């Protein structure tokens, strides 16, 4: 049995059915645009502040782009029973879930480059460490997608998945050093920042864009990798426990 055929078709079906739909395409452009504009105006500084804001906007674009889609591609399909058809297919659950999340990861990566493209019109991006930047974007997309998967699998309804997502997403904007340095956070919330995956992704992006990172890149990548593995394993465990009852 050629598993790659099933893998590719699940991924392609999701991309065609969900990600390339006009509402999602416009969301992918308008959302980062709004965030960039908002933080730029709020900062009150000149064009040079764009480089400081860019990592945060990139991270938020990926986070929201990926997590919001999983509620549809997983929870909705489970609710209307079409996910059963995938569970009946003779492919390992691991491969099936990688196919189901592949579209969200790609969508997150594409979303990340919307603010980058906009920033390129106003500032010189020649100082960006593109290798680290691209790797960071990919890692953040993967970890955010798996976080979205973990939430989507735990929920029974689409609205539940979206509500749970917000419990994670909005605090992360403020706690993970995207726009406000972790050093300046109140002492009692600082430990919380270090148990959130986006802290390490944001550190990588700050390092790649303007050199302002606090941890070695290797440590950031290692911890993000651990988050990815843990969230994916926990999601699969939850599917086996709750869906193949």
């Amino acid at each position: 049995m050629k598993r790659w055929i099933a893998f590719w078709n699940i991924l392609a079906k999701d991309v065609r059915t969900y990600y390339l739909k006009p509402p999602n395409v416009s969301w992918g452009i308008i959302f980062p645009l709004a965030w960039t504009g908002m933080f730029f105006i709020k900062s009150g500084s000149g064009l040079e502040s764009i480089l400081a804001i860019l990592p945060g906007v990139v991270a938020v674009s990926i986070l929201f782009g990926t997590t919001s889609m999983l509620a549809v591609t997983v929870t909705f399909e489970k609710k209307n029973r079409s996910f059963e058809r995938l569970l009946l297919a003779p492919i390992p659950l691991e491969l099936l879930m990688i196919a189901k999340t592949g579209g969200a990861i790609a969508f997150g990566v594409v979303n990340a480059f919307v603010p980058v493209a906009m920033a390129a019109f106003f500032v010189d991006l020649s100082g960006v460490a593109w290798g680290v930047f691209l790797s960071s974007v990919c890692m953040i997309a993967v970890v955010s997608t798996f976080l979205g998967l973990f939430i989507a699998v735990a929920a029974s309804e689409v609205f539940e998945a979206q509500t749970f997502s917000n419990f994670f997403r909005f605090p992360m904007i403020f706690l993970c050093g995207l726009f406000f340095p972790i050093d300046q956070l109140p002492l009692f919330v600082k430990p919380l920042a270090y148990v959130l995956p986006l802290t390490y992704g944001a550190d990588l992006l700050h390092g790649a864009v303007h050199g302002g990172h606090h941890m070695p890149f290797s440590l950031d990548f290692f911890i993000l990798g651990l988050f990815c593995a843990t969230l994916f394993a926990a999601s699969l465990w939850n599917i086996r426990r709750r869906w193949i009852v």
Partner: protein
Amino acid sequence: MKEAIFVDNLVKRFESVTAVAGVSFSVRQGERFGFLGPNGAGKTTTINLLTGLARPDAGTIRIGGIPCTDKPGAGQHLIGVVPDESNLYPELSGFDNLCFCGALYGLEKRQRVRRAHNLLEAFGLTPAADRKFGGYSKGMKRKLTIAAGIIHRPAILFLDEPTTGIDVASARKVRQLIAELNRTGTTIFLTTHYIEEAQRLCDRIAFIVDGHIVAIDTVDHLLQPIQQTHVLLIACTDAPSGILNHLSEAFPRLGFTIPRLGQIRVESATPVGVGPLVRFLEDRGAEVAEARRVRPSLEEVFVRITGVEADAMGREKITRKGSS
């Protein structure tokens, strides 16, 4: 002949409810096996256990000789499943749904496109091939769901209530297709609440009630105990109260029941004379509209063994479908 499905002492519990309580049976390769029972008897749970959508609490499952008890999906490459409710993608066209389902089983593009066209043709859905599945009528949805279950030509096909909710012509077409598939070697595992359908389609039938198999045999063997029974149905109105007692006193060798209002059912081990019965009823003021002999059917066997009225079973299912 090799076994296609082997199940031994299968148990499945949902909290305090035991949905499947020690079910054992085996289905031979190429056989048409029917699973008949009222709503909530454990039919769908058994299918879910056999197809890898559920894990058993106890027992043994083998699909095509492959042990599937601990690895629920191990035999999935051998099976096709037609669930009781359509679960295809509403936003995809009929053609795309079939191609997608073929791809899930590793069919190459050319192969799945050809088979999708053939199946759309066979089910009379070619004109709707490019329409979204969400816009299909209930009957069309059912037909496409069946087509999706067989696009990869499975060795074993599980059909959960395949003809529920579709028109007579489509149901007939589906039954023909099931028979055709079986002729090409596909093992059929069918659940239905249409007793006639099971009788017509299946080589062997199991009756399941409250998670237990109460009878399992070939249709002929199940019918044997009642083959010698003679049954007469009398349709009459204005029968006086206590008529059954009067009849029993007057005809002690016959058995009388009232299956529904305005109908008296007469059972006997020897041929029943219609005339004396009709006269007896008319003398007591009843108006007899019809008296006809009926051949004992599988429905009789089912009602005797399970105690569940066949009509009630159908109504239950239709109510559930309508409310879901």
